[in-house]
């Protein structure tokens, strides 16, 4: 190999390097004096495959950058595996390599409390009080400081076909009676995610919470296998068993790990009722589903106030640079956090706002009867515990639920197994 060949090889490697490393999107000029690194969730960004979402973020970010010529936004994206993405982000934060601002799954926010910068100087108590209770609680860390902004959310409900179910069930007994009757007519009475996925646990937690059950205590220690929590969990597992034993639900629910797994069966037009999230209403329409779905609160063991589970996304600031923080807050406000921006962004996303002023506002989106139905449940919503042990609890409950559904274990044995595993 002569020198010319060596030089060619080196140049080829150097030329190919940017192609290998370039994975960020850039908004604004390279010559702008302020560079802000920003990690977004692709489904809530210009990368979204949903045209309304893509257009919203694309146009708003471009407009903001045009109004701020001194800022360049260097945008990277979470991977589709949210768990893995949040884990990597936590590693980055722990080693001081986190982006200046990032979107964090609300479920993971508590794991970042020690790494994110407080935002209290930008949002006064009157602003924070506008947020719905579970979001307000999650946004504040144990030290009482504002750690992030919870900018959108979702709730879980019972969907029912209006042509098949005249009065949506309010209790488990009513649900099983109606679903078993519908199943005898060749329909699928009641469908839910019951497999190895977070969807199975999150959809069923409201049924557990409504009985006064708690997964962890105030210190984050598991308590779901003790006292009345154990009784509540046994009731829930017993209910799942009854859905199969009575024929109200098919045992294939154990194959459904997340809400989206229900779509193929729902689209066949034989499902009468299913447990799902608010985002499914729009997605089903987009998938060509013609059924007329009503929404109702999740049936509970005994009749009472509705309970539902909420998730959503937050924006957190990592940079300690005060000047950058102020710019980032301006960006977040204009994009998703100001009341007007939240109303527009949640409408584009078909998600729900976390500000009560927006939820009770008069935009066409929140006035939509179906969306209004979801919004009425916001004040009954709870978020999953932010305790470090929760992911392990969830995994064990997923195993317990699917083993009860398939008849591998009795509710008692499945719960004992989960509880002892966590005690280890």
């Amino acid at each position, binding site marked *: 190999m002569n020198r010319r060949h060596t030089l060619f090889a080196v140049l080829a490697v150097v030329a190919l390097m940017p192609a290998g490393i370039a994975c960020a999107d850039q908004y604004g000029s390279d010559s702008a004096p302020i560079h802000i690194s920003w990690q977004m969730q692709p489904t809530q960004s210009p990368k979204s495959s949903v045209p309304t979402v893509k257009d919203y973020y694309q146009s708003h970010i471009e407009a903001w950058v045009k109004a701020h010529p001194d800022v360049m936004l260097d945008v990277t994206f979470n991977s589709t595996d949210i768990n893995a993405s949040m884990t990597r982000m*936590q590693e980055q934060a722990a080693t001081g390599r986190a982006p200046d601002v990032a979107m964090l799954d609300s479920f993971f926010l508590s794991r970042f409390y020690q790494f994110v910068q407080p935002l209290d100087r930008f949002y006064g108590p009157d602003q924070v009080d506008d947020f719905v209770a579970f979001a307000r609680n999650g946004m504040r860390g144990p030290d009482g400081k504002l750690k992030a902004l919870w900018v959108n959310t979702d709730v879980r409900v019972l969907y029912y076909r209006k042509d098949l179910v005249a009065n949506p069930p309010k209790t488990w007994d009513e649900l099983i009676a109606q679903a078993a009757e519908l199943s005898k007519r060749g329909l699928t009475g009641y469908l839910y995610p019951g497999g190895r996925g977070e969807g199975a646990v999150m959809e069923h937690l409201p049924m557990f919470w409504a009985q006064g059950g708690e997964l962890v205590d105030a210190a984050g220690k598991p308590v779901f296998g003790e006292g009345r929590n154990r009784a509540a969990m046994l009731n829930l597992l017993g209910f799942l068993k009854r859905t199969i034993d009575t024929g109200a639900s*098919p045992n294939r629910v154990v*194959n459904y790990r997340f809400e989206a797994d229900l779509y193929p069966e729902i689209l066949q037009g034989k499902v009468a009722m299913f447990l799902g999230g608010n985002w499914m209403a729009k997605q089903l329409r987009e998938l060509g589903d013609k059924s007329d779905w009503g929404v109702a609160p999740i049936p509970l063991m005994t009749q009472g106030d509705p309970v539902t589970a909420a998730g959503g996304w937050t924006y957190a600031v990592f940079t300690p640079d005060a000047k950058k923080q102020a710019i980032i807050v301006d960006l977040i406000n204009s994009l998703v956090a100001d009341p007007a921006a939240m109303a527009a962004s949640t409408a584009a996303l078909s998600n729900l706002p976390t500000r009560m002023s927006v939820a009770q506002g008069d935009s066409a989106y929140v006035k939509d009867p179906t969306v209004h139905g979801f919004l009425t449940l916001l004040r009954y919503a709870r978020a999953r515990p932010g305790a*470090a042990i929760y*992911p*392990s609890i969830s995994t064990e409950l997923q*195993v317990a639920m699917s083993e009860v559904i398939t008849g591998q274990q009795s509710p008692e044995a499945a719960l004992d197994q989960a509880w002892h595993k966590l005690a280890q």
Partner: protein
Amino acid sequence: MTAGQRRPIEDRPFVWLAPLFLLLAVLYLYPLIDVTRLSLTDATDAATPAHYTFASYRSLLGSSEFLAMTRVALIFVAASIAGQLVFGLLIAALVCAGERRRLPGAALVRAIVLVGWVLPGVVIGIIWKLLLDESGAGIIAYAASLLGGRNPTFLSAPGPALFWVTMANIWRGTAFSMIMQYAGMKTVPPELYEAATVDGAGALQKFRHVTLPSLRGILLINLVLITIATLNTFDMVLPLTGGGPGRATEVVALYIYHLVFSEFQFGRGAAVAVVLMAIGLALSACYARMLRRERAA
């Protein structure tokens, strides 16, 4: 060589090999050492300080789920290997026989079988999930209904789920086995078959006394390679069953994934990864030894 005259680069292998060593050290050796270090800690997540301990390994030994996973992994690996070897051998023998008889379509069969090998594991998992859909949309359920089967159970019960996950893995890995064994069969001298024919041997006898002994080396190497590949299988099982129902299809690599990315038990996940790595290294050592023997022979 006079003073000032540079030695030719061929005489300085380190210069050639240094970039490779550097890449190997950064991309393979460092992660390997770090995983081993992590396995000796109780690390959970980046926010919690970790301590050095053997607890991760100790907890595995007494863990019922680790035992359950080991059982599932053994069944999955043994059945997958047997299936891939047998079907690979069968298809390779058929393709070779077809080529000998100059039958049309032998090359097409070879290409079709390779599809399973070319497709990414995630895609294979999704395809099999669609095939095995139990709600009436699945092709296999539909075929079963034509034969009078009602409410078939494929993935919603532990036994059938492990069976079908193994079948999907056999489907995926058979192509690689077939290619290995097909290549081996192509190296068997045709004179051996001619001599066997003269001796009056039938097709089965030729296969048993000529083909199989000639393929001994390649079969052993294939066995080691598909064992390593099956042990590391994860991408196909995740979309197909997620490890369920319960833990019925939780194979080793998926178990590690759940520990690390769902439960954030980095120390424990790393300990299982080290065990898996040790098995993989032992099998690789066997492979290297067999390769040396083959070359010597």
